[in-house]
């Protein structure tokens, strides 16, 4: 197999590395780049715990080849500071106790980030629809939906601080 040198932006930092054609993005993020927030769950696209933002859209990083990331922008929970809503969601999740074991939380928060970036006034149904692909075995989802709704409601109550990663 011919190796490929890929260059992409990871949480606002430029990265460049060699990957094999059959390297999976999730494995490269975790094992070569030290990014541990996307988790290995079902590893076949069903559970959503490997969710990352690729060019602003949530994808299953377990179903992307690493080589496909070339020239893209990847954001994981480690890059929360780079997105307006992610930080706010994190603090609401903390406040509402919206995660217990935390395994699904990075994926859920990124799915909610994508939702709020498109629609800052989501209905409860839209929130549920947005996180339908993220399985949580602990919370029963109610506190998660509440945390996302509260993050959205708080949109104008105080200015969001967007600070750089570095």
């Amino acid at each position, binding site marked *: 197999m011919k190796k490929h040198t890929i260059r992409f932006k990871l949480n606002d930092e430029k990265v460049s590395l060699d990957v094999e*054609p059959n390297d999976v993005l999730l494995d490269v993020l975790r094992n070569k780049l030290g990014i541990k927030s996307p988790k290995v769950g079902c590893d076949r696209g069903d559970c959503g715990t490997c969710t990352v933002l690729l060019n602003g859209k949530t994808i299953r990083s377990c*179903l992307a080849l690493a080589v496909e990331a070339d020239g893209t922008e990847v954001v994981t929970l480690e890059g929360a500071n780079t997105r307006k809503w992610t930080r706010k969601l994190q603090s609401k999740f903390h406040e509402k106790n919206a995660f217990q074991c935390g395994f699904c939380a990075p994926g859920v928060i990124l799915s909610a980030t994508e939702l709020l970036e498109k629609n800052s006034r989501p209905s409860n149904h839209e929130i549920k629809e947005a996180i339908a692909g993220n399985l949580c075995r602990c919370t029963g989802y109610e506190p998660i939906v509440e945390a996302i709704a509260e993050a959205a409601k708080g949109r104008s109550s105080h200015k969001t601080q967007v600070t750089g990663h570095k």
Partner: protein
Amino acid sequence: MPITTEFEYVKPKDMDKALHLFSLYGAKARALAGGTDLVVHLKENIAHPEVVVDIKDLGELAGLSLKGDTLRIGARITFSELIESPLIKNKFPLLWEASLTVASTGVRNRATLAGNICSAVPSADSAPILAVYDAEVLAQSVKGERRIPIAGWFTGPKKTALLPEELLTAVELKIPAKKHAGCYMKLSRYEGEDLAQGGIAVLALSDNTYRVAFCALGPKPSRCPKTEAVLNGNKLNEKLLIKAQEVISGEVSPIADIRSSKEYRLHMTGIMLGRALETAVARLSGKGPKYGTGNIL
């Protein structure tokens, strides 16, 4: 889970190069768009390509446009792009409705309609929709272009009429000339991300003709000509519906699997048909629920 199959990865910038690869490698070449099926198959050792051809740089495959009454959906178009397109929502609301039921946002952001029908699993949500619109599949090879009617596209479970040296480039749908409305009724175990246990698409036209198709209720998605024959020319009423429900039970051949029993699927086929017909007819007269709401059983 690492992928153990070794392959080369190529991302051609033009169609000629892509088609040359498919001509050269045939079945040993696999097209990669969203990867939501292919990467699973690579991980599970079901697919063993020598070369994976990433088609995401091919501009010819990116279009989503209406010319006259013909909609062209390029092979790179994802379900999210269909859902976000006002053209689809306004002119092809039935396709819009079915797209909303495909997996979840994180999958729909990558998964393409073309990939859905190339994987050709019996539960493909887009298949019954394409069937009721009499869609055509466009395939290209170095020898030229071929148009394959959707009725001849699915040849069996996970099997299609696409030749190994061909690349699916687009799917075309025509807006029916008559006023029409549709409904996609999907049976799944829970609302959210799940494959269909069964699905029925109905398109009701203003001249009292009906188009009915299913997924996950037989080895391949299909239209239901006998059911349509019973319905055609008639206004929908309870007696007609009961007759249609009887007939469709002979047109489907559901299996028992992990998601439901054969008997349950057979029973629900009639119920899905009834609700889909009633909803489509109600929508045709300007009533009925909005598209995309309340029709997941």
